[in-house]
């Protein structure tokens, strides 16, 4: 029977946040790319919370941007409120979060995809991946290689690389009470065939679960009973390429309300009707965004929980109830939402639901997000067991870049834990055993004082430029910024301020004690109450510098001691990362390895001694043994 047959360089399965970044990356790097989605209308859809960024996630968006990705630009063009979180805390944990107009966000991303050369968008369900045994068979390469995909209608698409970005759609089902829909989010068609094809290719799958709250008609809410939450006065954009002056828009408000004893009573009394507690749901849910049922059960002493009420866009009446996801039956949902102050007459537009889906065990991937056993097959986003739009986008761009590097036979891009949250995210996914959907958190980043959202461009632009995603113009701008920062730091270290009356007066006005002897500007900045910016009056010869350069100078000088300590730790970390283990290293030839360590090493096949050290069950003594063995065989 005749069928459609086409060839591309790269196939991307899924057009969510991971798929969009992956496809844009490969197409922009000149590779012919086709992106499949079950519905063209759901490109870059935000099926859960209506915002981008937040603690540690905001860092990821900045990093995607520094590599030449789209998420930052897209939200800058479609946000309706913006806030820098943690502003009272250290610069490392400042995090940008913007409320999105969901429909606009999705449409804008779709337009970008449509305008991109080399990129074809196709609505179809991919049912099968096609692989063949590696022809070389020389033991140096993976067992299999990817050659293309087959869709449900039977069409065949050949490709050199395939990127799986199937999100929560694999064998998805949505549940509330005893109502079960065999669909993806928002009633979209689930992908019901691909899981089996993955299993047939010896890929191990997990079953995960997550959930979303109900959406309430804004006309049914009494806002006078809610606390208003406004955005920042001066808005800071996500993308380093966005001119801050262009994003100072009129913002919408969010609101805050609380659950109460009555809410909790209703939930407790109906627990047996929740599929989470009746045993219908098999998947593992995330601890960081528990359903309201989980909160009430696990924290019985808490008298109330905060609920943020957020608009889903400018052209919809729907309000998102952050903090109150649930899989309770419809009637209970009505009861419990109506206990919230201001929600006495709430009208539900969409029910809250839990969703179960298949994802892969990400331990099967390299840090490039390519499967260790299938050359050319990559996976990114929620199908890797992560959660969140930002985590997905970050993996998406990395997988896209590495698919392109593979095809172009260039050096792959691996970002390590000391270079970015993206590095922490990927390393955690591929090296640690995952038991729940993975969310980025600042506490996961051990070098977080260095991995700030304000310096993502300084950290990662070199990679974006090297692979070809970041323009020379943007890269040159970063290099110039770096030069100016360095020069200014040197200057303020050498310029001293005397103890004149004028200086004393100025210091007192800033709440600081007068000087008894001369002091360098740098030393002054280290006083907690002073900043580089605030001591400008004491520094008449200061050159004119942009706000972003001034900010970097301030942070570098003010927190110098802490930053230097982290830099030392990073040097130690890099020492072990640089000790590479060959890809097909045979651990059975190493004598004296403990059995547990041998099994773990064979399972994970770490790329370096550093990565090996992070595998649970591998001890420092095992690493020493491995090092001695590798050294012994080095000279052979």
């Amino acid at each position: 029977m005749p069928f459609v047959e086409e060839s591309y360089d790269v196939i991307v399965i899924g057009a969510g946040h991971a798929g969009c970044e992956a496809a844009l990356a490969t197409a922009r790097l000149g590779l012919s790319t086709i992106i499949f989605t079950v519905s063209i209308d759901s490109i870059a859809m935000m099926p859960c919370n209506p915002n981008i960024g937040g603690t540690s996630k905001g860092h990821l968006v900045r990093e995607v941007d520094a590599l030449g990705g789209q998420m930052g630009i897209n939200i800058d063009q479609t946000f309706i409120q913006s806030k820098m979180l943690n502003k009272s805390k250290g610069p490392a944990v400042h995090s940008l979060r913007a409320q999105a107009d969901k429909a606009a966000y999705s449409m804008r991303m779709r337009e970008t995809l449509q305008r991109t050369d080399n990129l074809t968008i196709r609505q179809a369900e991919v049912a099968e991946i096609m692989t063949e045994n590696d022809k070389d068979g020389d033991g140096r390469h993976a067992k299999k290689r990817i050659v293309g995909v087959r869709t449900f209608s039977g069409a065949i698409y050949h490709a050199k690389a395939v990127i799986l970005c199937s999100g929560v759609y694999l064998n998805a089902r949505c549940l509330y009470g005893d109502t079960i829909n065999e669909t993806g989010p928002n009633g979209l068609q689930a992908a019901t065939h691909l899981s089996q094809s993955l299993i047939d290719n010896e890929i191990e799958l997990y079953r995960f679960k997550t959930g979303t709250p109900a959406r309430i008609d804004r006309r049914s809410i009494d806002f006078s009973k809610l606390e208003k939450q406004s955005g920042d006065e001066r808005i800071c954009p996500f993308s380093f390429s966005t001119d801050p002056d262009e994003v100072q828009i009129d913002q919408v408000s969010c609101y805050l309300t609380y659950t109460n004893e009555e809410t909790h009573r209703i939930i407790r009394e109906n627990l047996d009707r929740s599929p989470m507690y009746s045993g219908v749901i098999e998947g593992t849910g995330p601890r960081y965004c528990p359903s309201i049922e989980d909160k009430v059960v696990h924290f019985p002493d808490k008298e109330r929980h905060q609920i943020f009420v957020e608009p889903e866009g400018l052209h919809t009446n729907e309000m998102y109830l952050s903090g109150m996801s649930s899989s309770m039956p419809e009637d209970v949902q009505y009861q419990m939402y109506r206990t919230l102050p201001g929600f006495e007459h709430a009208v539900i537009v969409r029910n809250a639901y839990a969703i179960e889906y298949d994802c892969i065990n990400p331990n099967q991937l390299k840090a490039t997000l390519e499967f260790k056993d299938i050359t050319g097959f990559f996976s990114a986003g929620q199908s890797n067991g992560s959660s969140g739009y930002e985590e997905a986008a970050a993996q998406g761009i990395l997988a896209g870049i590495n698919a392109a590097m593979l095809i172009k036979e260039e050096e792959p891009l691996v970002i390590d834990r000391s270079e970015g949250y993206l590095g922490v995210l990927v390393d955690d996914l591929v090296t640690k055993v995952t038991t729940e959907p993975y969310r980025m958190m600042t506490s996961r980043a051990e070098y977080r004082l260095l991995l700030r959202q304000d310096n993502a461009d300084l950290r990662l632009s070199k990679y974006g430029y090297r692979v070809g995603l970041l323009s020379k113009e943007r890269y040159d701008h970063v290099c110039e910024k770096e030069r100016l920062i360095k020069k200014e730091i040197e200057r303020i270290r050498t310029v001293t301020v005397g103890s004149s009356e004028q200086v004393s007066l100025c210091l007192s006005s800033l709440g600081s004690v007068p000087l008894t002897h001369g002091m360098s500007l740098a030393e002054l900045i280290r006083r907690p109450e002073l900043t580089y910016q605030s001591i400008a009056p004491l520094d008449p010869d200061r050159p004119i510098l942009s706000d972003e350069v001034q900010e970097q100078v301030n942070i570098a000088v003010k927190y110098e001691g802490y930053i230097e300590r982290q830099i030392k730790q990073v040097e130690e970390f890099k020492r072990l990362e640089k000790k590479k283990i060959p890809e097909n290293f045979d651990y059975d030839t190493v004598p004296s390895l403990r059995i547990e360590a041998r099994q773990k090493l064979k399972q994970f096949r770490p790329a370096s001694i550093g990565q090996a050290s992070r595998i649970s069950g591998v001890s420092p003594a095992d690493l020493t043994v491995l090092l001695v063995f590798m050294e012994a065989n080095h000279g052979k």
Partner: protein
Amino acid sequence: MMERDTIAAIATGFIPSGIGIIRISGPQAIEIADGLLEGADLSNAPSHTIHYGMIRSNGELIDEVLVALMRSSRSYTTEDTVEIDCHGSPLAMQKVLEAVCQSGARLAEPGEFTKRAFLNGRIDLTEAESVMDLIQAKTEYARKSSLQILRGSMKEKISTLRKTLLNRSAYIEAALDDPEHYDLSGFPELLRTDVLTVQDEIDRILETAENGRLLSEGIRTVILGKPNVGKSSLLNRLLGEERAIVTDIAGTTRDTLEEQVMLDGILLKIIDTAGIQNTEDPVEKIGVEKAFDCIPDADLVLFVVDASRPLSPEDQQISSLLKDKTVLILLNKSDLSAEVTKETLEKEISLTGLPIVSISSKTGDGFDQLKTTISDVFFHGNISFNDELVVTNVRQKESLRKTKESLSRVLESIDAGMPEDFYSVDLIDAYAELGRIIGEKVEEDLINEIFAEFCMGK
């Protein structure tokens, strides 16, 4: 591939009143030794020379020593190496090693000198395998023995301190990750109080260590047996056996007495010795109830049987209580005519396969065998336990000091008005360092604590 840091360890085993050697290897070896040594100048001394002097640290005179100097690359590791010959007592070796570590050396990992010798090309390629075996064996041994040494209340105390640190870190992290749900106002002041309390606790532990008592708690030992089998004389013999450390510690209850006995460096803590003495009272029938109470906590039970009298139901009764315990059966009064032999013992009591040692508390016969057996039971007898005890002790003290340093940095950050996220790094360092003492890693502890204690999320 030269390593960048300098390592130190005890190179000899422990020989009572003999010589102990502390070996230092690495780029700073000579500088460190020179800084501690009085009466000789090593800085310009030629390689392969021996120097006489005194080791002094923090103003305290520690020991009279001979120092052997070997310059790179004419040493075992091919690095600059100094060997300090000091007195062979555990205390002297420990003090010298501590002084060396405080001057900037790091305690060597098990097998590390040999590893360096190999990596620096000093040892032949074919020896690599034995190096790897050595590293694994020594590590496993060190792990077991250090955990064995640290038991009971000390472990509990350290776990409690760690729990406090972890919980406070988790609170900060929860607030950083979810600022709209958790507020840090007023937190620094609370944290300061907690950190000061933890520091005080650590000071108290360190003080105990400084007083000469080892950090280790020893093997908790109970002596059991029916009346008149010679428990008292066994205890007295053990106490008198060595000129070793013997201390009386009043227990928590008035009639519980503990004695510490050092047998060739193995520390036995004999609990409820009061009970032992009492049971010698012939009026008392079995009279060992108090000792029985101690059985659940004991690491080792010394079950004393009178070899000169036939076994009685009382012996049976005692043996029935000792299931699942580490038990050594002592056939006492071997100097008298033997009514009970190992064979009859195996036949008549319910415990089988246990080590049995014939002793005479009166003459001291069999006590060497007793020591070897204890060493075998607890430390597999394959490597000398004694130096490990000292090293473990030094390691634990180092960890406690580092913990204190990290906590001091937390206090500095609080005082300097730094934002809360700056505390976390040092809090977690302190937590990790305390974990080294009790053999626990950090892994996902922080993340788990955040989710267990704080309700997160959207």
